[in-house]
């Protein structure tokens, strides 16, 4: 599975708990209230555990977490 699919599944199942099954990779995660501040931190913890990477503090910024697609593009750099 690629990053997008894994992240999309995690957000749908763990953060949204099946509430928004039509979530798309381009959807704005914060502006649409899909995930909140603590959700971002949970997402970071999941990424580090699942993909075995360390996300530097400096990279935990809105611009890298705006959507699943943007986040996947960021993760592709590792």
């Amino acid at each position, binding site marked *: 599975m690629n990053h997008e699919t894994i992240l999309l599944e995690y957000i749908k199942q763990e953060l*949204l*708990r*099946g*509430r928004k099954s039509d979530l798309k990779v381009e959807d704005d995660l*914060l*502006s*649409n*209230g*899909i995930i*909140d*501040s*603590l*959700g*971002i*931190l*949970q997402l*970071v*913890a999941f990424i*580090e555990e699942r993909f075995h990477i360390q*996300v530097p*503090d*400096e990279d*935990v*910024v*809105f*611009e890298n977490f705006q959507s699943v697609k943007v986040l996947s593009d960021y993760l592709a750099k590792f």
Partner: protein
Amino acid sequence: MAKRLLYFNGLAILGVMLFHGTGWGFVAMFSWAARYQGATAVPFSQMGSPAYYALRAIEQLVAATIPAFLFVSGYFAAFAAGRSGMIAWRVVWGRVKKFLPPYFFWGVIALVMLAIQGIIFTPWRYLVSFLTGDMTPAYYYVPLIIQFYAISPFLAPLAKHHWRLLLLAAVLVQLAVQVAQMGVIMRWDMPAVFGFIAAWPKWFFPVRILWFVLGMVVGFHLSSFKEVLTRWRWALLALALLLLPSGILEWEWLLQQSGQPWVDHRETVLDSVYAVALIFAFLGFDQARLPGVKLISDLGSKAFGIYLAHIPVMEVVARGTYHVTPGLLAYQLPFAVLVALVSLVIPLLLMNFIDLLPPIRRYYNYVFG
């Protein structure tokens, strides 16, 4: 550093449980003393007992919990602003609308519990209750945090570009509030404006503005703060440890000067310095290994739901003890810890129960946020 904030939030919710548990400990110590001492119980006779100081020590230790929550929220308001430093109104609304369903759900439960005790309000009073969160002593936090998110689009550019000025203004506002409140306790002859400020309720945002602003400022200027906090981490920890007993002594002195047998604890200037030192020390020890990371971070992610759900549970547990096992009330420290523990475990069980049942799982966020 940023990633540790989930853990920090977990510590904060544990602190809240202990703070409210000690509150019930004091109720058992004073208001319910007749239940285990008999009709001859002397009011406030246990003031100054070892149990009293043990409860005060816990209360003081966890005095930084609400500042910690607000700091984390401020930090993420800065996150939501991104590099542009602007927070879109739809981000604010997206955040606020997540608070409302759980707040309404647990608010109704709290009001039903009051009605069972015979406390029934007028429709207008119910509306006021929801606007101020006064249906319980703890729900003021929700209107408070909503106000902070509502003003965050105005604070963000200041926190990004004029952070020293903003921080100074926030310090002065909070200082004025705390001095005014202290003046009321001490019955100082103060200018009318201080009397007005002292009357500000705890749900009104200027009362706690420093913490949210501090979180935003650190969020926008993380790398600068990181360097300084790492360098000064031991001094910050030492300051926090020094202020812990100082805060206890300060409150005892205030109580003595007030001439009253009891004053509900409120944040003082020393408490604020303690909270700053503790928050900064935690951030400064960025590389330190922490115990129970997974467990406490998990609590941190559920903090809002636990915060709302534990209040009615705590009330039932404490009042249940009063009726069923009043003898336990004589041991206020174990009682306070027990009340805190049970009131943490029951909401967690409820959360897991809903989370594991597919037909109702989708409603989890409406109940616990």
